[in-house]
């Protein structure tokens, strides 16, 4: 999460779930926690029972709202307007936690005088390049901070622009011993971050919020007040979010907005505070820490790009921050290369850096699908994912798969992505015919979690080991087995090859002990490599501080370093919580980094190192002992005193002052304003969703100018928007979501009898007014359609999805769609994602399925060939009208004018 990464330094939830019980106010927004994280929600209920306010801000009244002390319904996609309103409310009324903001955030920092705000440029920040459709971030910098790297912003701050997690706040190269060149502690300077913030949000008044979000002024003020009254020295508030924020074309900025609120209120790094990112998969945090993502290497080290760095040094330099913990980038990278290539990687051959594959700006999943459709991708391996149902615009994915030469699908059941060639809407409609599909398909039965050893990293960065209970049956195998033996086979077959191309794979260290009849690789030996050792002695590393850049240490993921310290699998620690002294339970499993459970916890003490209050004491400076101590592992150099001032020549962590808690940041502070690391602006700004029935009330710039679109992709047409002619064909806002009873694309739940019966059919949730408007009957059928496709669903007429009255007196109706269904399984139904488009957030390339537009009518959808016809007719109808009077997006206008 570059949002959290750029703001605080690490792309992970800042708090742990159990700590929510200490919150005085919990705002759940962009999340349906009670339904999708029911067991984690027990900690919210604990807080509620202790008298905490629980506020749910969401387009729908869900099982979470039912448990909240306050629910505010807002229009899907208007979250930044709401949070911006909170920020403005705090600033206008001077309600921020002054001492915290001055010392721990970059509020006092003065910004380059070239910087121009959206308020000045009608919805664009300075540096917009209409040709490229990108920002040049030079003008966003701290005043007097030189920017280097020919390729501009990409090279700054850990390749912020290239993928969800890479946006670590390592930026700020050239900071003078960790201190920004120019700041104003009084926060009065017109160009200091604090004042810029004030100006940027001055128009986000309660009335504006009400008109834009469709809630009442009172409800908004009640929420803002609740947050303010429950923050400060003696009280803390927490935010919980999930993909309800992430899955927007401004998803990253939504999270950023919450980050700003929490900084102004001084809730970061403190018990019962922070921002809890609620992840939806068992190891989705792990799969970004140890990425199966194109743009990063383990530990958020950026993949090298397709340009000439001038050798390893160039790459290191471009990614090293002189100050803060990113100062040791070289050690992290070299240790990874040693783990990957062992003795083959040496100082003389630059640790094989030049042989590493290079990436382009975007090689993400949606890019790959487009490449499939264009026939550029020949082979594809799918392991535990179901794009045919789970990805936006399922049809495009299915058509793409049909263009492959070969496809490997690994799963426990035969999912839609394996069966698309004979059982899919396209086969039904005749758009795909099995006898015409050239794709060779291997379905490989997978082993379940009960049939293998391994570790999951949960939503709070906790690595938890699970032991194998039984042997996998017949052909079922773990991914560990599949990829290990696949690699072994390939290396075997290429043993003799002299081809330069095969140098790297031949150099790959690939020896792992195996056990049992099927020769299952030993998972712990892999974890040992991840944790790292000292080459030669073979001594296990105790943490990333021991990593060396001289090739004397090997470590597969620097932030996980120490998870096998002393040769003990730290992730397998299962000491019961009742046998531990504190609720922090540090001896249960292992958290990155360095087993710290509450990140930035130095901030739980005031600048002098004393707890802000007795009630909220967590980590503090023990003067006698001369060290930081408390309930948790201090997220700070343990011996660095609060009054430490870095010497002139200080580097890396030594350049971080004793009263700057955010040790991953170049300046040791949290960033209210992000000078670099984000594609679409240093501050969150309200933009309408890519598809929305409304214009932007603030600017002529309607949607995020930097959002990724596929304008030329026939398979991904967009609905006319706002007041465009033709937009009335798709007049309603649709939002997709999960239900407690099912899991994502349904492969793991539609196959389970006990779960299938609990939510047995696809349905849509609509308000009685909408039902009346279009003639839907409760319990009947509805057909929902967009430019992409049409699906059918049973109708649930309920007040829980409320229509919202907007500024212009228009009423906007919202349609709720769970997205769990597909054509396979014990229960089947149409897939909501077939309706969605593939316009993406520019930072993380995530699709906008939480807010787009649709039409809805009573009755079941057309069958067979009639379906695509039905969709096409409506699309033509809408688009032809648009063509007569084409609307040009402002960013386009600017292009032509320049």
């Amino acid at each position, binding site marked *: 999460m570059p949002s959290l990464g750029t703001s605080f330094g690490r792309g992970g939830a800042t708090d742990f779930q159990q700590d929510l019980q200490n919150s005085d106010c919990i705002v759940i927004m962009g999340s349906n926690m009670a339904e999708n*994280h029911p*067991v*984690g929600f027990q900690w919210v209920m604990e807080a509620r029972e202790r008298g905490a306010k629980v506020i749910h801000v969401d387009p729908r009244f869900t099982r979470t709202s039912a448990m909240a002390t306050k629910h505010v319904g807002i229009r899907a996609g208007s979250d930044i307007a709401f949070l911006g309103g909170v920020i403005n409310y705090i600033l206008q009324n001077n309600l921020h936690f002054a001492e915290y903001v001055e010392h721990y955030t970059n509020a006092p920092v003065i910004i380059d005088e070239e910087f121009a705000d959206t308020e000045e440029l009608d919805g664009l920040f300075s540096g917009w390049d209409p040709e490229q459709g990108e920002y040049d971030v030079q003008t966003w910098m701290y005043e007097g901070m030189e920017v280097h790297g020919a390729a501009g912003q990409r090279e700054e701050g850990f390749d912020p622009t290239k993928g969800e997690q890479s946006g670590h706040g390592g930026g700020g190269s050239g900071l003078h011993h960790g201190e920004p060149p120019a700041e104003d502690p009084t926060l009065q300077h017109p160009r200091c971050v604090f004042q810029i913030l004030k100006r940027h949000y001055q128009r986000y008044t309660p009335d504006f919020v009400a008109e834009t979000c469709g809630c009442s002024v009172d409800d908004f003020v009640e929420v803002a007040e609740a947050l303010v009254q429950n923050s400060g020295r003696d009280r803390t508030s927490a935010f919980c979010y999930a993909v309800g924020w992430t899955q927007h074309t401004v998803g990253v900025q939504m999270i950023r907005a919450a980050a700003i609120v929490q900084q102004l209120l001084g809730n970061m790094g403190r018990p019962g505070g922070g921002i809890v990112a609620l*992840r*939806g*998969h*068992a*190891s*989705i945090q792990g*799969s970004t820490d*140890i*990425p199966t993502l194109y743009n990063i290497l*383990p530990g958020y080290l950026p993949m090298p790009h397709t*340009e000439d760095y001038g050798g390893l040094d160039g790459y290191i330099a471009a990614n090293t921050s002189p100050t803060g913990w990113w100062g040791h980038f070289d050690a992290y990278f070299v240790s990874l290369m040693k783990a990957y290539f062992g003795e083959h990687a040496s100082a003389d051959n630059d640790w094989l850096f030049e042989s590493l*594959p290079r990436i382009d700006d975007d*090689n993400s*999943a949606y890019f790959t699908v487009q490449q499939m459709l264009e026939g*550029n*991708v*020949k082979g594809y391996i799918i392991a535990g*994912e179901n794009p045919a149902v789970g*990805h936006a615009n399922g049809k495009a994915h299915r058509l793409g798969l049909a263009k492959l030469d070969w496809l*490997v699908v690994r799963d426990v059941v035969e999912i839609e992505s394996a069966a698309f060639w004979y059982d899919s809407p396209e086969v039904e409609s005749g758009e795909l015919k*099995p*006898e015409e599909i050239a*794709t060779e398909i*291997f*379905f490989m039965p997978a082993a379940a979690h*009960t*049939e*293998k050893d*391994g*570790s*999951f990293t949960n939503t709070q960065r*906790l*690595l938890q*080991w*699970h032991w194998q209970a039984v042997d996998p049956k017949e052909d*079922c*195998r*773990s*991914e*560990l087995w599949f*990829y290990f033996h*696949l690699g072994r*086979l390939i290396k075997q*077959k290429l043993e003799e090859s002299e081809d330069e*191309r095969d140098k*790297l*794979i031949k150099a*790959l260290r690939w020896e792992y002990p195996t056990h049992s009849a099927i020769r299952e690789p030993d998972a712990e030996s892999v974890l040992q490599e991840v944790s790292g050792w000292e080459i030669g002695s073979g001594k296990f590393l105790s943490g990333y501080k021991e990593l060396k850049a001289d090739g004397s240490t090997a470590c597969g993921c620097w932030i996980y370093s120490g998870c096998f310290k002393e040769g003990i699998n730290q992730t397998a620690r*299962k000491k019961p919580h009742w046998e531990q002294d504190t*609720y922090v*339970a540090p001896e249960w499993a292992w958290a990155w980094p360095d087993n710290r459970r509450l990140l930035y916890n130095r901030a739980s003490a005031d600048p002098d190192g004393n707890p802000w209050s007795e009630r909220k004491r967590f980590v503090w400076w023990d003067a006698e002992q001369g060290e930081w101590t408390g309930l948790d592992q201090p997220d700070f150099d343990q011996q660095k005193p609060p009054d430490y001032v870095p010497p002139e020549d200080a580097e890396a962590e030594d350049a971080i002052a004793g009263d700057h808690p955010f040790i991953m940041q170049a300046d040791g502070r949290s960033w209210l304003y992000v000078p670099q690391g984000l594609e679409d602006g240093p501050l969150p700004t309200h933009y309408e969703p890519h598809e929305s029935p409304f214009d932007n009330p603030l600017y002529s710039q309607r949607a995020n100018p930097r959002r990724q679109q596929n304008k030329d992709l026939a398979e991904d047409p967009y609905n006319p928007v706002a007041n465009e002619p033709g937009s009335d064909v798709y007049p309603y806002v649709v939002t997709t979501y999960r239900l407690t009873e099912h899991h994502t694309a349904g492969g793991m*739940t539609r196959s*389970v*009898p006990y*779960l299938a019966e609990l939510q047995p059919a696809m349905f849509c949730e609509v308000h009685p007014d909408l039902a009346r408007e279009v003639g839907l009957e409760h319990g009947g059928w509805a057909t929902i359609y967009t430019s992409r496709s049409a699906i059918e669903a049973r109708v649930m007429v309920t007040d829980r999805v409320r229509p919202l009255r907007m500024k212009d007196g228009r009423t906007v109706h919202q349609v709720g769609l769970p997205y769990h269904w597909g054509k396979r399984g*014990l229960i089947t139904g149409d897939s909501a994602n077939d309706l969605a488009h593939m316009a993406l957030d520019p930072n993380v390339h*995530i699709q906008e399925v939480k807010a787009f537009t649709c039409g809805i009518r009573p009755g079941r959808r057309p069958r067979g060939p009639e379906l695509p016809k039905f969709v096409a007719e409506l699309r033509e109808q809408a688009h032809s009208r648009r063509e007569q009077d084409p609307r040009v997006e402002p960013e386009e206008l600017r292009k032509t004018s320049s």
Partner: protein
Amino acid sequence: MALSKLLDSWPVLRQLREGDPLGLGKAVQSPRSQTLVPRIDEAEHVVHSICPYCAVGCGQLIYVSDGEITHIEGDPASPISRGRLCPKGQASKSFVQSPLREYKVKYRRPYGTQWEELSLDDAMDMIAERIIKTRADTWEWKTEDGNPANRTMAIGNLGGATLDNEENYLIKKLMTGLGIVQVENQARI
């Protein structure tokens, strides 16, 4: 002899003997009820595990008897879940023993109209061959504008959010070694 035994066990007599004249309690307790033992107490071994669904990370206890899972329930020792599970986590046993679970490799040849059988070893070998060939056919040393590439853009790998860290590590390591850069997972989605 046997008859008297039978008589002894006849609840009507027990009603009088065991002070339960109404026959509502102890007197009518059946042999099964008298000897009932919970199957988790009979399990051969218990395994500490973690729920495979969402990222809350609830602890699970897996009970096993003669090679089969007999029950899965929450692990009270976990400071996060305290032994509790949601319906999905609670259904984990039914999931791993799902009636739809696949146990055999299935192969679909180009233009084929049904699945065919294929041995695991052959499948692995064929997949390895496909990767090697596709990679050789589509390798690029340089991009159009002459920058270093060292890769193939013709192969992709999707998935990881539901896998173990160790598995993700091997995937990224192997793909990087092979010059395959299009490695993605649900975290994107």
